[in-house]
């Protein structure tokens, strides 16, 4: 929406096309924390340990930093600190990552920035984050299960009759409308030339008008307006444009279609 032309070809910046990146799946509670954390601090540490044994595999673990752990609402349970990451390869599909930069809508820059598409790299490995099944994690799970168990609707016994609405003698919008009408005052019959001027001006913009719209536009009494309309306009009784007024042909002067018509005549 910010961009006036969203359907424009954009070059994908391929400067990172040879870069390999990791795709990491993390639990929601971690991502919640990370979302809240400011961008410049360390949110965690990734430890890659390679044991010396020939058969043993590389172990990856994630340790959340204290600052992130501290970011919590008063009643929130604490989250586990240590996590294990399972490494797996990407099979049967090719995954890439691209970024889409949308410039701010109301940027004051003289040269407005355009959207940018950038290829960020190919996903080489998938990592899944598992918490160590320690006490904190169990507490967290317990809490989440308890919350999930709570029914959304509960039975509540009432002591008195609850009246959920009061009768209103005059609704607010009615009052507003009346006031507005009063302020406008009665529609006065204007000079005929003035009204005609208004009518012609209105018909310059559109060909067909409803009587109601013309009344609001010209602010003339309906009877008087109809009197004038009968002189200069035709009333359509049939579809399309049923119940609408249009100018009589002799008063009409629509430029564009006339040109078209003459053009087609010439052919």
């Amino acid at each position, binding site marked *: 929406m910010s961009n006036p032309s969203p359907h424009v070809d954009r070059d*994908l910046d391929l400067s990172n096309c040879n870069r390999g990146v990791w795709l990491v799946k993390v639990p*929601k509670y971690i991502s919640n924390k990370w979302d809240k954390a400011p*961008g410049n601090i360390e949110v965690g540490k990734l430890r890659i*340990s390679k044991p010396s044994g020939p058969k043993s595999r590389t172990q990856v673990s994630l340790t959340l930093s204290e600052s992130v752990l501290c970011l919590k609402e008063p009643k929130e349970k604490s989250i586990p600190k240590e996590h294990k990451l399972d490494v797996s390869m990407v099979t049967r599909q*090719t995954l890439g990552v691209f970024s889409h930069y949308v410039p701010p809508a109301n940027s004051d820059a003289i040269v407005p920035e355009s959207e940018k598409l950038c290829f*960020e790299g190919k*996903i080489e490995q998938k990592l899944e984050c598992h918490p160590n099944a320690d006490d904190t994690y169990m507490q967290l799970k317990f809490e989440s299960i308890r919350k999930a168990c709570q029914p959304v609707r509960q039975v509540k016994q009432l002591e008195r009759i609850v009246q959920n609405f009061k009768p209103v003698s005059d609704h607010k919008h009615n009052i507003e409308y009346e006031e507005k009408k009063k302020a406008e005052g009665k529609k006065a019959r204007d000079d005929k030339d003035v009204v005609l001027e208004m009518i012609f001006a209105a018909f310059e913009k559109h060909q067909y008008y409803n009587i109601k719209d013309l009344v609001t536009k010209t602010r003339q009494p309906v009877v008087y307006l109809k009197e004038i309309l009968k002189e200069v306009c035709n009333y359509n009784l049939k579809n399309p444009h049923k119940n609408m007024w249009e100018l009589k042909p002799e008063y009409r002067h629509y430029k564009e279609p006339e040109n078209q018509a003459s053009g087609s005549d010439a052919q």
Partner: protein
Amino acid sequence: MSNPQPSAPPTVQEFSIRVPKNVRKKYHVMRFNSATNTDFSKWTQVKMERENNAKEFSRHDDEQPKFGAGSEYGREAREEARRKKFGIITRKYKPEDQPWILKVNGKAGRKFKGIREGGVGDNASYYVFTHAADGGIEAYPLCEWYNFQAIQRYKALSAEEAEQEFGRRNKVMNYFSLMLRKRLKNEDDGEGEEIDEGKPKKGKKSSDFKISEMDEWIDSDDDSSNDEGEDGEKAEKKTTNKKKPPAKKAKKKKGSDESAMEESDDGDEEGRELDYISDSSESDSDKDQKAVKEMKGVEEESALRKLLTSDEDEDEEEEKKEEAGKEDAKKDGKEAADKTDAKDNNSKEKDSKKRKRPKKKAVDKKKPADGSTSDSSSASSDSEVEKAAKESGNNSATGSRAGTPVEKPKKNNGSPSTKKSRMDHQAPMLSYGGDNGITEEAVRRYLMRKPMTATELLQKFKGRKTGLSSDQLVNVMTQILKKINPVKQTIKNKMYLSIKPQ
């Protein structure tokens, strides 16, 4: 990053993870099936865009003008209100919700469509970990997953088309026999043409305009019956019972009858054409108007004649003429006489009816028609020809083409009949490649029926066996067109030629 440096046995590498905040920059995953063999490192020149579905989205009555002529004041608001009344809430078109179109390696490369997938991040979040400049790790949350699928560059067949193609699956094998057949056919045609050359001009028609096999048969039948009829006429309609069946038949099989009947003056027609040559120099302006009126009739008749005549009839006819040339001539004369009576252009029913009329009349009228200034119809000239030819003692071949050269001088000598004069604004008819081929008359006929372009016109004649190469054909056509000088009008940048039916 994926390959930690191998070093001393229990290696432990530590990276600090940061989550840079950039609200404006969103990271998405593009997922490709491995079958597409996508290799990001081989990508050059990649373009991405959102698919434009705005047109499909807002399809309803966009053709109505928003302002100016034909527009209604507040129509859109009213429509919206009306829709709301029915519980239809229109959503705004969101371009950022549309699928991605990915074009790899320029125009000739592949094209993918990336459709957003839902439900991937419902229970877990995904981050992408990349190396930062300072050796740390930057984690970016992934927002959307797009599944990219290759877009077909070709068009799939519809069910009907597929069926058709399937039915054609065995045909490939038949190409040889097809060619063989074609070649054989060509040879046949060549032979036929050779034979035709030996024959008089009209011979070529035999293969072209045969409406059905039956025609041949009917014609011969009719001819005989006609003869019978004439015999009957000679007998002053004494044997009415006998005569009626042929007459009925004639009416029923109108087409064939015509061809049979007209056959008799086919040669005469040729003579008439030549007749115009002689008349072209003369002018008789006062009759022009009428001439113009009647011309159409004449041409239509001749057109029909052309369509209906076939070679076989002719041959028969020729033979018959040799036998009964006189009779034919008389018949023609009678027809002509009738025409003069009726002052009608040559309607077929009339002709067939006329046949039955007493002959005496014809004999009376024949004389004035012959070489006089009386207002006789075009057919009268036919009779004239016939008679003239007969008089010249050449009666064996009068009806046939062979007779025409003999007739011609006679015609020229003939005094200017008014009928002839109606053609006087017209130059001599051009005809090439026999009667099958291009004649001015044929061209006129086509143009009269409906307006057509020059190419269309040429196409009409290409189908026929004119014996002309296409270059020659074009030359001839231009000459004819120059002569005719048809009405030219341009429709859709194409010039259409036509002749106003007069």
